[in-house]
């Protein structure tokens, strides 16, 4: 009844239009509030909160449609079906373009409602929320165009679909997305995207208010939160690729991966330049530009990955959203670029107020250098990811850049970043240009430097001998030891001050893991005969058989292939997966790896194919084809035609029973016609043949597979299997082919990212309540900021 009501009155679609109107109204009231109409502010606020409730309601409505398999809706029909388990149904709610836009919008709205009391307390509400509401205006405009509540009869009206038509089932969710990570990764990534709206809105507000220092203190915890969440989301995507999708690695520099990495890198730079401004009042313009850029790059990433422009250069699936949505994406991005650049130009004279001067041996200078290096990385990834677009514009071959492009440039760049990071932490803030600091710096880095040299020598002895990898290894060890030493010094006195050290140490560990896995992984293809142990890469591996799982599901046929992996001190059984799905009409298998986890390395098995060894000879014949019997060449068979009489009565025992008529030509020229039948179970298509003996011979023949040509039934063929009963064969054995690789220190990659994200969260708690030294100095009515801001390097980061 509710469904009928929703259907008859287009409730979902009307709701999206109303929400768009509400966002627009909220923005207009915030504009009025900025222009001095104080009574407009509470109205704008109430509209915004109502908007948030409405958007959450829309999300719930979409979820309800998906969970109840309401295939009246094009979105539900496109991304779900009745066989999906509950978890995947929930994921289907945001697996498509429209659903993911709705999820992103919901996060923006919810964060906005939390942000309102925060900015209200600081008297920044109207200026911040006006831009924040405008972001929602555009997101909701996209949802009006790419509406998740569009009806199937409206979408396919041209195809003659009548109003009220309900498909029996949906198209289903891409099987690659059928795992637990789809329920975690996208919501977290979109939270990061949504949170990056906050620094943008604050930066714009700072230019409206012409207050260029207060906003940094207020927005720093939000920026840390956005960076932490986005980094965590990116890492989960990498883990998903490694653990389930079977891509072998965790990072492939794919456009979709890059598109979330670029804003993350700029937000990392922003965090550091904001710290510099808090301490020195310098980098005012830089921080505003970076806050604007981080958000605009989120929009650019959305444009790259959702507009279809990179459709044929990525392993991820991109869908062309249609010209109207494409235009709105372009307008969305252009509007915020114009707004940001316009405000920067309008306020350009304000940015010359800073008289901050950074001595090269100061921490603010080295932090700035670190930020420049991080931005160089972002620029490289941006140029690389945009290359297919650039190439198309210049009429060149539209092709994604090879991974080598990113790896080659980043190897030296990351090495320098890590060294700068280590050194920046041992120098002091605001030292004079003429101050002689080399001696004290050397003294401070002596211990971590010695440890880094020792670790590098150790790595060299165990095989890290390429010059660039030695350099990267040394830089990583150096950054790790500097940060670990400083963290240990302050952890007891002030745990919240360890956030930056934990994050930096995490990045250093991550890079050691990246170095080990990318350069020192080994791999080998192996054919594992069932029950026969084989030594591969120092492990004894035995394929012991397969087992079908999730038998209750009709839309997929899923098998686990069990392999025992044995080393000197460990025996483990891994179960790589191959499955066939109706989603791609079972044309190709989907594969998931099997991983034997251990602390120092993973044994990674990517399944390839399962074959039979010692199988009987086979041949596929089309109508009219004649061959000599492989088991007795004095006999010839001709495939005449199919006999479908067994199928006319309908499925037999839950399947079909086609027949193949053959003519056997005996050595004396005599011809005999035989009809061979095969029982094909549905929907698994498993074939159980009914073999026949060729009269007066020892030869047995069976019709074992129907080879259907869908475009021309005349071209369809039949597969036959031959057996000489006079020469009994041993039972055929399964042969499991897999690519086996050893991934050393892969856990450092995961642990490093977790530490990095954890460090960000520790810093959020630190900066959420803390006033800057400048504020403290101002509160104390002390103009000697420099003296107040001068704190020990070990304590103040």
């Amino acid at each position: 009844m509710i469904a009928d009501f929703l259907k008859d009155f287009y409730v979902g679609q009307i709701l999206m239009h109303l929400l768009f109107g509400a966002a627009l109204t909220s923005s207009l009231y915030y504009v009025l509030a900025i222009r001095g109409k104080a009574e407009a502010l509470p109205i704008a606020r109430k509209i915004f909160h109502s908007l948030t409730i409405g958007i959450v309601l829309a999300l719930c409505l979409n979820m309800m449609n998906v969970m109840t398999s309401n295939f009246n809706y094009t979105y539900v029909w496109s991304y779900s079906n009745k066989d999906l388990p509950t978890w995947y149904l929930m994921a289907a709610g945001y697996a498509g373009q429209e659903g993911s836009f709705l999820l992103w919008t919901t996060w923006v709205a919810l964060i906005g409602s939390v942000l309102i009391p925060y900015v209200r307390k600081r008297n920044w509400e109207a200026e911040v929320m006006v831009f924040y509401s405008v972001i929602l205006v555009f997101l909701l405009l996209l949802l009006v165009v790419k509406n998740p509540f569009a009806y199937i009869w409206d979408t396919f009206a041209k195809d003659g679909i009548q109003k009220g038509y309900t498909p029996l089932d949906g198209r289903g969710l891409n099987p690659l997305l059928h795992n637990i990570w789809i329920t975690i990764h996208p919501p977290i990534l979109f939270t990061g995207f949504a949170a990056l709206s906050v620094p943008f809105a604050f930066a714009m507000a700072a230019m409206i208010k012409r207050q260029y220092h207060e906003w940094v203190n207020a927005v720093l915890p939000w920026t840390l939160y956005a960076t932490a969440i986005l980094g965590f989301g990116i890492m989960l995507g990498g883990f998903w690729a490694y653990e389930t999708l079977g891509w072998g690695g965790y990072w492939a520099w794919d456009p979709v991966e890059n598109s979330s990495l670029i804003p993350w890198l700029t937000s990392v730079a922003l965090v550091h330049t904001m710290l510099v401004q808090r301490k020195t009042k310098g980098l005012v313009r830089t921080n505003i530009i970076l806050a604007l850029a981080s958000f605009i790059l989120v929009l650019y990433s959305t444009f790259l990955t959702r507009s279809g422009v990179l459709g044929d250069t990525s392993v991820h699936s991109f869908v062309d959203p249609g010209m109207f949505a494409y235009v709105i994406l372009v307008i969305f991005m252009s509007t915020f670029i114009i707004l940001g650049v316009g405000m920067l130009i309008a306020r350009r004279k304000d940015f010359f107020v800073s008289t901050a001067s950074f001595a090269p041996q100061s921490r603010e200078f080295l932090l700035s250098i670190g930020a420049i290096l991080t931005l160089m990385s972002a620029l490289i990834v941006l140029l690389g990811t945009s290359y297919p677009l650039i190439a198309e514009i210049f009429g060149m071959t539209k092709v994604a850049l090879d991974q080598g492009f990113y790896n080659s440039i980043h190897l030296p760049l990351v090495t320098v970043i890590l060294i700068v990071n280590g050194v920046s932490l041992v120098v002091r803030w605001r030292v004079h240009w003429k101050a002689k600091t080399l001696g004290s710096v050397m003294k401070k880095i002596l211990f971590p430097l010695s440890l880094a040299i020792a670790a590098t020598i150790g790595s060299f002895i165990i095989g890290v001998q390429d010059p660039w990898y030695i350099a990267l290894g040394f830089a990583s060890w150096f950054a790790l030891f500097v940060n670990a030493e400083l963290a240990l010094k302050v952890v007891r006195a002030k745990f919240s001050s360890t956030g930056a050290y934990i994050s930096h140490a995490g990045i250093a560990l991550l890079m050691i893991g990246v170095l080990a896995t990318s350069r020192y992984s080994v791999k080998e293809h192996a054919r594992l005969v069932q029950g026969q142990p084989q030594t591969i890469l120092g492990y004894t591996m035995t394929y012991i058989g397969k087992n079908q799982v999730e038998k209750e599901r009709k839309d997929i046929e899923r098998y686990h292939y069990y392999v025992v992996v044995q080393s000197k001190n460990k025996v483990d059984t891994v179960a790589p997966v191959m499955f066939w799905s109706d989603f791609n009409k079972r044309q190709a298998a989907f594969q998931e790896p099997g991983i034997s986890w251990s602390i120092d390395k993973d044994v990674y098995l990517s399944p390839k194919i399962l074959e039979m060894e010692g199988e009987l000879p086979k041949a596929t014949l089309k109508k009219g084809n004649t061959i000599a019997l492989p088991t007795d060449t004095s006999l010839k068979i001709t495939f005449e035609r199919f006999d479908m009489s067994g199928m006319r009565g309908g499925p037999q025992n839950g399947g079909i029973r086609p027949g193949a008529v053959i003519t056997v030509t005996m050595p004396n020229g005599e011809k005999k016609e035989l009809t061979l039948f095969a029982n094909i179970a549905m929907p698994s298509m498993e074939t159980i043949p009914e073999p026949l003996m060729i009269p007066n011979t020892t030869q047995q023949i069976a019709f074992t597979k129907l080879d259907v040509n869908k475009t021309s039934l005349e071209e369809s063929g039949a597969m036959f299997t031959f057996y000489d009963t006079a020469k009994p064969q041993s039972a055929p054995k399964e042969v499991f082919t897999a690519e086996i690789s050893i991934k050393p220190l892969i856990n450092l990659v995961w642990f490093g990212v977790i530490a990095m994200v954890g460090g960000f969260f520790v810093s959020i708690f630190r900066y959420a309540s803390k006033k800057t030294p400048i504020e403290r100095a101002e509160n104390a009515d002390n103009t000697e900021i420099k003296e107040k801001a001068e704190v020990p390097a070990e304590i103040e980061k």
Partner: protein
Amino acid sequence: MRLLRIISIVATVCTVAVSGYFMTIYTSLPTPTFNKAILEATGQGSEEQAKKIKIISAAVIDSDHPFTPQEFYATDTEGTTFRVNYTGNDPLPTLKNGEAIDIIGHVHGGEMPYVHASQVIKSY
């Protein structure tokens, strides 16, 4: 500040220049024959994306090899005729039998191997 500004400008210029240089290195597509591409794809690791290639070929259009906007046939420099499945963004150019073309995409193995093309460019 002035020093930082100079460093920023130099870093930007260097990044663009170095990126441009490396782009020229990492975008030249290999040009194998169809059979060689199939052979290479068979030995390719799972962690690698399907390798993009350019097959220098000529269109084959006759009664046995029909031309449709999504599918046609081509023959490579070894004389192997193969099926091309086209899913590029731009409409497929109208081709004549024997017309020289560069097919950019990746190969699919299996019982009926074919090229999944994202670009088909007439070569002059």
